[in-house]
């Protein structure tokens, strides 16, 4: 990540909105891609098997938290004869920095991928200056 990056990936997780109904379940950090345009940062994250309703995107101050619960696993538990898919909860936190307009963060979920668009404040966007 370059020095100009406003988003930093945090390792620790201060406050997770994940339900702790089953004590032995682990929380995994899903893989993420982030790109920056002139007007926004766009974050995409793999959250397979998660119903849209269970995805929580929260912005607290400069911290963006994404959490999701995989409920798919309830279904075929007893008949499983081979198991590789980790039926975990997902959680990951990002530090947004100061140039993001946290009031207009938008999120959508499709095909198991969450996309979060984080618009920059107009003051943080590059401005073209006309030469007279």
């Amino acid at each position, binding site marked *: 990540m370059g020095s100009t990056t406003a988003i930093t990936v945090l390792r620790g997780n201060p406050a997770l909105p994940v339900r702790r109904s089953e004590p032995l379940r682990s929380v995994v950090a899903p893989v993420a*891609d982030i790109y*920056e*345009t002139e007007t926004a940062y766009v974050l995409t994250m793999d959250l397979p098997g998660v119903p849209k309703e269970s995805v929580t995107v929260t912005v607290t101050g400069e911290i963006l938290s994404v959490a999701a619960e995989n409920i798919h696993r309830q279904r075929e538990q007893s008949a499983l004869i081979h198991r590789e898919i980790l039926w975990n909860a997902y959680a990951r936190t990002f530090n947004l920095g100061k140039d993001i307009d946290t009031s207009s963060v938008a999120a959508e979920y499709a095909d198991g991928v969450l996309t979060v668009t984080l618009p920059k404040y107009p003051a943080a966007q590059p401005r073209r200056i006309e030469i007279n």
Partner: protein
Amino acid sequence: MLLRIDMPTRLMDSTLEDLFEMPRRSTPAVDVAEYDERTVVVAELPGVRKEDVQLTFTKDVLTITGERKPLEIPQNAKILVHEQHVRSFERSVRIGHAVDTEAISASMEQGMLTVVLPKAAVARPRTITVK
């Protein structure tokens, strides 16, 4: 257990050139559940559209192959974090019972592929009444 999962041997017999070729073909994680009348294979395929998945069943092996289309990024965008490298994938699962191949069905939901393989009549359990 009748089922066997085939892990790709590609890495073993690959040349150096293959190893450094990016991106490498990935192997999605699978869960397999067996019921009296069917076996259900679930594969984790986030970001993959159903039209980009191919399924074949040959003899007793179900093979899942396909492609994950790269993210559409605006031209002037700068990539800050790049962790997702899956482009193409392949996975095979050997099914340990006779399958009614005509009745195999598959669906995609929330990035999860579900393949239902109904057992052929001979492979279904039959209850015998003691007279």
